[in-house]
Protein backbone atom coordinates (compact mmCIF):
# COMPACT_ATOMS: atom_id res chain seq x y z
CA UNK A 1 0.00 0.00 0.00
CA UNK A 2 2.71 2.41 1.06
CA UNK A 3 4.65 1.63 -2.09
CA UNK A 4 1.57 2.17 -4.24
CA UNK A 5 0.94 5.56 -2.67
CA UNK A 6 4.57 6.52 -3.14
CA UNK A 7 4.43 5.56 -6.81
CA UNK A 8 1.24 7.60 -7.17
CA UNK A 9 2.94 10.60 -5.55
CA UNK A 10 6.01 10.34 -7.74
CA UNK A 11 3.92 10.09 -10.91
CA UNK A 12 1.73 13.05 -9.96
CA UNK A 13 4.65 15.24 -8.90
CA UNK A 14 6.65 14.42 -12.02
CA UNK A 15 3.59 15.31 -14.10
CA UNK A 16 3.32 18.55 -12.13
CA UNK A 17 6.97 19.32 -12.80
CA UNK A 18 6.35 18.75 -16.51
CA UNK A 19 3.61 21.36 -16.41
CA UNK A 20 5.91 23.81 -14.66
CA UNK A 21 8.40 23.11 -17.43
CA UNK A 22 5.70 23.66 -20.05
CA UNK A 23 4.76 26.96 -18.42
CA UNK A 24 8.34 28.15 -18.51
CA UNK A 25 8.85 27.03 -22.09
CA UNK A 26 5.68 28.88 -23.03
CA UNK A 27 6.91 31.95 -21.21
CA UNK A 28 10.19 31.78 -23.08
CA UNK A 29 8.78 31.04 -26.51
CA UNK A 30 5.45 32.83 -26.85
CA UNK A 31 5.46 36.07 -28.82
CA UNK A 32 3.40 38.53 -26.78
CA UNK A 33 2.26 39.33 -23.26
CA UNK A 34 -1.17 37.72 -23.64
CA UNK A 35 0.06 34.35 -24.75
CA UNK A 36 2.83 34.45 -22.16
CA UNK A 37 0.24 35.16 -19.50
CA UNK A 38 -1.75 32.22 -20.79
CA UNK A 39 1.27 29.93 -20.57
CA UNK A 40 2.09 31.12 -17.10
CA UNK A 41 -1.32 30.83 -15.47
CA UNK A 42 -2.59 27.69 -17.10
CA UNK A 43 0.51 25.59 -16.92
CA UNK A 44 1.69 26.69 -13.50
CA UNK A 45 -1.72 26.15 -11.97
CA UNK A 46 -1.94 22.65 -13.38
CA UNK A 47 1.57 22.06 -12.11
CA UNK A 48 0.61 23.17 -8.63
CA UNK A 49 -2.57 21.08 -8.63
CA UNK A 50 -0.64 17.97 -9.57
CA UNK A 51 1.98 18.69 -6.92
CA UNK A 52 -0.78 19.11 -4.32
CA UNK A 53 -2.47 15.88 -5.39
CA UNK A 54 0.85 14.10 -5.33
CA UNK A 55 1.68 15.37 -1.87
CA UNK A 56 -1.68 14.51 -0.30
CA UNK A 57 -0.74 10.85 0.44
CA UNK A 58 2.61 12.02 1.83
CA UNK A 59 1.36 14.25 4.62
CA UNK A 60 0.18 13.00 7.96
CA UNK A 61 -2.86 14.50 9.55
CA UNK A 62 -6.05 15.98 8.22
CA UNK A 63 -4.98 19.53 9.03
CA UNK A 64 -1.91 19.35 6.81
CA UNK A 65 -4.03 17.95 3.97
CA UNK A 66 -6.57 20.72 4.45
CA UNK A 67 -3.80 23.30 4.27
CA UNK A 68 -2.57 21.78 1.01
CA UNK A 69 -6.02 22.04 -0.53
CA UNK A 70 -6.44 25.57 0.80
CA UNK A 71 -3.12 26.62 -0.76
CA UNK A 72 -4.29 25.26 -4.07
CA UNK A 73 -7.66 27.05 -3.79
CA UNK A 74 -5.97 30.33 -2.90
CA UNK A 75 -3.55 30.18 -5.81
CA UNK A 76 -6.30 29.18 -8.25
CA UNK A 77 -8.54 31.98 -7.11
CA UNK A 78 -5.95 34.70 -7.08
CA UNK A 79 -4.15 33.72 -10.26
CA UNK A 80 -7.40 33.49 -12.21
CA UNK A 81 -8.40 36.97 -11.10
CA UNK A 82 -4.96 38.56 -11.21
CA UNK A 83 -4.21 37.27 -14.71
CA UNK A 84 -7.40 39.00 -15.87
CA UNK A 85 -6.24 42.23 -14.29
CA UNK A 86 -2.81 41.92 -15.86
CA UNK A 87 -4.23 41.18 -19.30
CA UNK A 88 -6.45 44.22 -19.00
CA UNK A 89 -3.61 46.51 -18.08
CA UNK A 90 -1.55 45.00 -20.90
CA UNK A 91 -4.27 45.88 -23.34
CA UNK A 92 -4.36 49.37 -21.98
CA UNK A 93 -0.69 50.12 -22.32
CA UNK A 94 0.29 48.29 -25.45
CA UNK A 95 -1.08 47.99 -28.90
CA UNK A 96 -3.47 45.17 -29.35
CA UNK A 97 -1.96 41.99 -30.73
Amino acid at each position, binding site marked *: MRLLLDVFSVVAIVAGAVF*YLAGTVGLLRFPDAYTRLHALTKADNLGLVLVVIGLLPQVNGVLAGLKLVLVWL*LVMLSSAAVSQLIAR*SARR*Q*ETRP
Partner: protein
Amino acid sequence: MADFLQSAGAFVVLMVALGLVRVARGPGRADRMMAAQLLGSGAVGALLLFGAASGESAVFDVALTLALLSAFASIAFVKFALRQDQPLDDEEDAT
Protein backbone atom coordinates in the same frame (compact mmCIF):
# COMPACT_ATOMS: atom_id res chain seq x y z
CA MET B 1 11.12 9.94 -0.95
CA ALA B 2 12.53 13.02 0.78
CA ASP B 3 15.33 13.24 -1.77
CA PHE B 4 12.88 13.00 -4.62
CA LEU B 5 10.73 15.77 -3.13
CA GLN B 6 13.80 17.95 -2.59
CA SER B 7 14.90 17.56 -6.18
CA ALA B 8 11.37 18.19 -7.46
CA GLY B 9 11.35 21.39 -5.40
CA ALA B 10 14.72 22.40 -6.81
CA PHE B 11 13.43 21.74 -10.32
CA VAL B 12 10.40 23.95 -9.75
CA VAL B 13 12.62 26.76 -8.42
CA LEU B 14 14.80 26.36 -11.49
CA MET B 15 11.75 26.70 -13.74
CA VAL B 16 10.71 29.80 -11.85
CA ALA B 17 14.21 31.21 -12.26
CA LEU B 18 14.15 30.66 -16.03
CA GLY B 19 10.69 32.17 -16.25
CA LEU B 20 11.84 35.19 -14.27
CA VAL B 21 14.73 35.75 -16.64
CA ARG B 22 12.23 35.92 -19.48
CA VAL B 23 9.84 38.14 -17.55
CA ALA B 24 12.67 40.49 -16.60
CA ARG B 25 13.40 41.14 -20.28
CA GLY B 26 9.95 42.64 -20.68
CA PRO B 27 9.28 44.45 -22.93
CA GLY B 28 6.06 45.83 -21.43
CA ARG B 29 5.13 46.38 -17.85
CA ALA B 30 2.53 43.64 -18.12
CA ASP B 31 5.38 41.16 -18.48
CA ARG B 32 6.94 42.42 -15.28
CA MET B 33 3.65 42.15 -13.48
CA MET B 34 3.67 38.44 -14.16
CA ALA B 35 6.77 38.14 -12.00
CA ALA B 36 4.93 38.18 -8.68
CA GLN B 37 2.40 35.74 -10.05
CA LEU B 38 5.08 33.43 -11.42
CA LEU B 39 6.88 33.44 -8.12
CA GLY B 40 3.55 32.97 -6.36
CA SER B 41 2.65 29.68 -8.02
CA GLY B 42 6.26 28.52 -8.33
CA ALA B 43 7.57 29.26 -4.87
CA VAL B 44 4.38 27.95 -3.30
CA GLY B 45 4.83 24.66 -5.15
CA ALA B 46 8.48 24.50 -4.13
CA LEU B 47 7.60 25.28 -0.51
CA LEU B 48 5.03 22.48 -0.43
CA LEU B 49 7.60 20.06 -1.81
CA PHE B 50 10.32 21.19 0.61
CA GLY B 51 7.85 21.06 3.49
CA ALA B 52 6.73 17.53 2.67
CA ALA B 53 10.38 16.50 2.25
CA SER B 54 11.33 17.69 5.72
CA GLY B 55 8.07 16.46 7.22
CA GLU B 56 7.61 19.86 8.82
CA SER B 57 4.01 20.72 8.08
CA ALA B 58 4.46 24.26 9.41
CA VAL B 59 6.12 24.99 6.06
CA PHE B 60 2.63 24.66 4.59
CA ASP B 61 1.68 27.69 6.65
CA VAL B 62 4.48 29.60 4.93
CA ALA B 63 3.07 28.46 1.59
CA LEU B 64 -0.37 29.67 2.62
CA THR B 65 1.00 33.04 3.67
CA LEU B 66 3.03 33.33 0.50
CA ALA B 67 0.04 32.45 -1.68
CA LEU B 68 -2.02 35.11 0.01
CA LEU B 69 0.62 37.83 0.03
CA SER B 70 1.88 37.18 -3.50
CA ALA B 71 -1.71 37.68 -4.64
CA PHE B 72 -1.68 40.91 -2.67
CA ALA B 73 1.60 41.96 -4.29
CA SER B 74 0.26 41.12 -7.77
CA ILE B 75 -2.78 43.27 -7.13
CA ALA B 76 -0.57 46.11 -5.91
CA PHE B 77 1.39 45.76 -9.17
CA VAL B 78 -1.69 46.16 -11.30
CA LYS B 79 -3.13 48.85 -9.10
CA PHE B 80 -0.10 51.07 -8.71
CA ALA B 81 2.30 50.22 -11.47
CA LEU B 82 0.52 51.68 -14.44
CA ARG B 83 0.70 55.23 -13.16
CA GLN B 84 3.04 57.96 -14.10
CA ASP B 85 3.47 57.49 -17.81
CA GLN B 86 0.00 57.53 -19.16
CA PRO B 87 -3.32 59.01 -18.19
CA LEU B 88 -5.89 56.31 -17.84
CA ASP B 89 -9.55 56.20 -18.34
CA ASP B 90 -10.03 55.84 -14.66
CA GLU B 91 -12.47 52.97 -14.37
CA GLU B 92 -12.10 49.37 -15.23
CA ASP B 93 -13.35 48.38 -18.59
CA ALA B 94 -16.83 47.01 -18.58
CA THR B 95 -16.72 43.45 -17.43
